[in-house]
């Protein structure tokens, strides 16, 4: 008798059901501003995935832009250290 080791440790994902996929797709739908604003219930899964990819790309671009801006700010100001300390206190 061979004992089969279960490959999945999460019981919820051992069988992927329609409901799980739909649930996750609708969760993504809530996060995406484009689709959320349309308030349409008839958005296909492929559409949601495409919008998700576009949204992630736009977030990556924003991170790139902000990183560039921050590196310029660090270079341009002599009081960057003090400003960083101030920010640390604000964010704690």
């Amino acid at each position, binding site marked *: 008798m061979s004992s089969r080791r279960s*490959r*999945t*440790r999460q019981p919820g*994902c*051992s*069988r*992927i*059901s*329609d409901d*799980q*996929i*739909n649930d*996750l*797709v609708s*969760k*993504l739908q809530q*996060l*995406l501003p484009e689709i959320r604003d349309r308030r349409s219930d008839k958005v296909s*899964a*492929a559409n949601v*995935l*495409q919008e*998700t*990819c576009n*949204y*992630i*790309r736009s*977030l*990556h671009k*924003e*991170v*790139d832009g*902000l*990183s*560039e*801006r*921050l*590196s*310029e*700010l*660090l*270079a341009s*100001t002599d009081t*960057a*250290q003090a*400003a*960083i300390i*101030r*920010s*640390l206190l*604000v*964010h*704690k």
Partner: protein
Amino acid sequence: MNPKRFSSSTRPSTTVKSRFACGFLRALWRINRQRRTSTSASSREICRRYLRVKVAADVSMASAVGSRRAWSRAILLRKLRNQGQNGTVRVRRMSNIPRMRKRNICGNKCTEEVAGTCQAEQLRKLVPGGEEMDMCNLLGETAHYIECLTTQVNVMRRIAEILST
């Protein structure tokens, strides 16, 4: 036992946002301190600094989330591998951290339809560690990754505002 460095259970109750903000600000401090000791202001140096800020932001967010998410583990592992190649830090064995293995997608039409599309493939490339996930996990990880990216952008924007005043 998970390495303490990546364990969130020993941390006091703080939000991902505040942990990210503190970690990222400390990284900026270090980058700025190195800038002050360096005399060159070449375009190459500027480009390097921008990349360091970008990497610091991603790694700070992944550290704030910890090892409980596959996408954050992928970023942290990538960082360790890069540091290992530079010879500055020894790469720790990550055997205790559960790995997401490629699982057979148990067929139902909806899953196959979604999983086989080129949008799904694009998504796998955009989410860190996405190429090793099955569809169910990929969607869950994507949702969490988007939430954290949004937080990251908001905090970075706020820091840029403070630094420009």
